[in-house]
């Protein structure tokens, strides 16, 4: 059991807990890998659902540049990133 835990710990954290990967480029763009859907889409707020929590991007002029079943790219002036459980 301990060996199995050790093996699990040697893997990157996102594989261990199914966590999404968020890549921010300044405050202009954010890429969320591991999304399961869009919960809210507005020019001020975009809420993206992941397996563990909801990520809310707020700002102005926000838009979804690209979207696929597991990945979303948000563009605009991001002022705030919120993680909602």
């Amino acid at each position, binding site marked *: 059991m301990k060996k199995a835990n050790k093996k699990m710990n040697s893997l990157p954290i996102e594989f261990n807990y199914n966590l999404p990967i968020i890549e921010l480029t300044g405050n202009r763009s954010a890429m969320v890998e591991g999304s399961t859907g*869009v919960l809210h889409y507005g020019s001020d707020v975009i809420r993206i659902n992941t397996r563990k929590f909801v990520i809310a991007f707020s700002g102005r002029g926000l*838009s*979804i540049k690209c*979207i696929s079943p597991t990945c979303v790219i948000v563009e605009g002036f991001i002022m705030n990133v919120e993680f909602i459980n």
Partner: protein
Amino acid sequence: MLIKIIRFLRGYIVFTVVGSYPERMINLFNRSGVNYWDLLPEEDCYSGKMLLSDYRNIRKIARKASVRLSSKKRVGLPFIIKKYKMRKGIAFGGVLAVLLMIFLSGFVWDVKLNGVQRLEKNEIYNALSESGLKVGAFKGAVDFEAVERELVLKVPEIRWVSINALNSIAEVEIKEKFSKPAVKKGKYPCNLVAKCDGIITDTLISRGTCKVKRGSAVAENQVLVSTVVEGTNEMLDKLTYVHSDGKVYADISEKRSFNQPRNRTLLIPKKNYIDKTELCFLWFKLPLKINSSDNELSSGIFYAERLKLNGITLPLGINRLRIYGFNKAIKKVNKEKIKILLKKKAMLSEAFNFGNFKIKNKKYSFTELKDTIHLNAEYIINKNIAVKKRVKVE
């Protein structure tokens, strides 16, 4: 850019979404693999773009998401084709134009010469034409490397040549050979001798011993400047042979004779001329105007007009040949006119033959014969009569 082209070719629709839960629609689209882009939230709706092929299959999804889809704009080739479906001529013309472009791009439209300074361009064009590179030649049939080699052999003044067949224009880059510098031959001993009889007026000697004086008469081949130079004070007994150099000016007498028959044969141009026109397209020539001329004596002027677009000569143009006919007429000319003609001939001859010399005196005399009148011109010219004559020293 490539993606934009592909989207345009496939056709896309700018759509708007109105509904309570457009986010649901986005998720449903993702799950069903529908491709869309530029989805932007607007005041009370969302607008985006979608490929035409996907738009046909999303009605069901939209109903499921309880949103209302409406197309705002249709962009792309399928819509243009649909618009002009009834006008088959346009499509046919377009296809024909593309085919024609592909066909024509296989030929040489123009041959340009770059880097020619001293050589005759016509000579190079002719050499290129003989080797197969000319306007209208099929590019695939021209071996450019062989043409380059042949051109260098045919025109020996060319040092280097390279032919770049860019699109349909063959640009011939040419480097000419450097001209050899003149070798100064001045090492051998020589005399300056008189080219003809004359009276010396001036001497400008740079090397050698002058043997004549101003005012002295000299005969042909007489030594004017000797190669033998006596030694200086230290070496009085020593003689040296030098390469004589200098100019010896003398007054010489020249005679010229001109004649003019009393009856002149004149070629009188006819009032009418004949035009021959042909349309040129690459190598093909289509006669537009055919006229035959029965003139024994005729002369023609050839014009070649080529169509130009943005400085590029197109292989389309018109060749014009204007032929003038002449009538032969024999006219008796009066004495005075003949004399004027003869004087003009004499003056022309003077300009060509004595242009570089000073004519000190000239005298014209006329001799009238039965059929012709002669003009005898006598000149006294001042010119350099010294020529070099090599001396053998043993």
